[in-house]
């Protein structure tokens, strides 16, 4: 009987084949979209930005003198600097001979460290809350509205409170970050830990399994997909959270100081602020991808999902 049914299995295993053969690598798709955005950006400037005047355009020796047919203020060189001006800002050197890119990456790594710590605290606290709430129904009604309220308070308002109240250093920043991270983990955890088949619960009950066994053998494994979705939201948010946390604490080594400085000199060198934004978002994308990578490891062997649901 077993051998007769065996050929069915490789067919089931091959269900992922069709999707991988023809589809573009996700990174290629992402770069394509970035390229399209850059083209749109410059097209807007070509149509309605400030005049283009180049004796030698990007070192090619081609002279350009273009007057856009329309004028739309948001497209001028201060609001939307040319992409190459942003790139040039990245590679411009400061008084110490460091390029802005090097400075921003250094600052980004500093911020990343606080963000990672905050994310870890937030994920643990969030999961802990979810576990408690799942087991005590009364708490769900009492606690969840409170948690929702906590997220309606602008983080920028409570950041000084936490950072200065606690200590104006990495710990304060990490706590502000965790404030942004824990909420999605709690909400997804509550949902995920109840997303099992009720018969699975009956099955474990029939084995006289206790609450802790059910938590480890059923609730947590059943909620991994939910939790990783929340971890992705939380990890991306943790970079923003760490930057916001750095603002009132007067920390100078992080991205917050770089953004503040660039804001102050914005009208003189708008490319620098955009450069800082680009680097900050690259860090955000980086942590997102890192969580995705961990998820793939943890969920390997799990039932394949629809290709659209993977991210």
């Amino acid at each position: 009987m077993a051998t007769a049914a065996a050929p069915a299995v490789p067919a089931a295993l091959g269900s992922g084949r069709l999707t991988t053969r023809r589809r573009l690598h996700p990174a290629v798709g992402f770069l394509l979209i970035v390229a399209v955005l850059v083209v749109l950006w410059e097209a807007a400037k070509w149509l309605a930005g400030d005049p283009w005047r180049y004796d030698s355009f990007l070192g090619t020796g081609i002279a350009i003198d273009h007057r856009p047919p329309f004028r739309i203020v948001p497209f001028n060189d201060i609001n939307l600097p040319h992409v190459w001006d942003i790139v040039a800002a990245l590679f411009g050197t400061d008084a110490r001979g460091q390029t802005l890119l090097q400075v921003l990456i250094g600052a980004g790594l500093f911020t990343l460290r606080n963000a990672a710590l905050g994310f870890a605290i937030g994920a643990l606290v969030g999961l802990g809350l979810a576990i408690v709430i799942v087991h005590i129904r009364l708490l769900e009604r009492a606690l969840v509205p409170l948690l929702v309220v906590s997220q309606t308070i602008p983080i920028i308002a409570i950041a000084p409170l936490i950072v200065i109240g606690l200590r104006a250093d990495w710990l304060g920043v990490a706590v502000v970050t965790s404030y942004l991270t824990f909420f999605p983990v709690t909400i997804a955890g509550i949902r995920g830990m109840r997303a099992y088949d009720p018969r699975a619960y009956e099955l474990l009950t029939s084995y006289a399994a206790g609450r802790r066994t059910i938590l480890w053998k059923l609730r947590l494994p059943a909620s991994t997909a939910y939790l990783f979705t929340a971890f992705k939201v939380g990890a991306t948010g943790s970079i923003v959270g760490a930057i916001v946390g750095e603002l009132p604490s007067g920390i100078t080594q992080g991205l917050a100081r770089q953004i503040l400085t660039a804001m102050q000199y914005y009208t003189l060198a708008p490319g620098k602020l955009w450069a800082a934004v680009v680097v900050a978002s690259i860090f955000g994308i980086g942590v997102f991808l890192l969580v995705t990578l961990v998820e793939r490891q943890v969920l390997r062997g799990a039932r394949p999902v629809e290709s659209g649901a993977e991210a």
Partner: protein
Amino acid sequence: MTAAPVVELAGVSKRFGGSAGAVDALSGIDLRIGRGEFVSLIGPSGCGKSTLLRIVGDLIAPTSGSVTVNGKTAAQARLDRDYGMVFQVPVLFDWRTVQKNVELPLEIIGMPKPERAAKASSMLALVELSAFAGHRPWQLSGGMQQRVAIARALALDPAILLMDEPFGALDEMTRERMNLELLRIWERTGTTVIFVTHSIPEAVFLSTRVVVMSARPGRITHVVDVDLPRERNVDTREMERYFELVTEVREALRAGEGPPADGDPASGRVRAEGLSG
């Protein structure tokens, strides 16, 4: 049947809901099941046969009456891990391999790793799925998944196997094959089986006794002793006695339904559900 009963139900009833919208799911159930018996519970949807199974397994408490299992309360029997459960769907854990799924109950009782690996392997051999130990459940066909669920249910050598329409979701061909498979396993393990089903031929083919139930309130209307030879195979389904028993169970079911055209729209709906299930 002459041996001391493994399961003894006396005056069991179950009422769901509060005083206003209360529903009598079961009423006055008396049943004794001997060691090594194979008892099927059959009846229309809503007759409480799944509820009865869960009361025996201490997953639901009865409103009144007593349940004795191996001379103990049902709760004690559950704590002693006397039960093996199989549901209509396999309820296998996607995040575990087939082998690890069968090991699950052994992990819960704290069996050391090498022992439980050996035990799970022998259970998989029993259901002839040794070659698939390293596969994930979703890579297996529905019938194979259900055999894994049976292997898992048998892993603790339960005194009683509780099966809630285990083959209801399978196609007819697979279902007949699974019936033979289950009989072979039952022969080999000697375990007592309580088997909920919608299918009259399945109930007659598998059982030593068929318990016929009717709905509102759920109660036992007939008990049909299946006096077919214990050794059953594909030829059993062509025996004259088999057809007589199928007819007997069908008539018992019809008698339990009451007058056919009673003008109650709800009863028609329930019957339609029974057919689709």
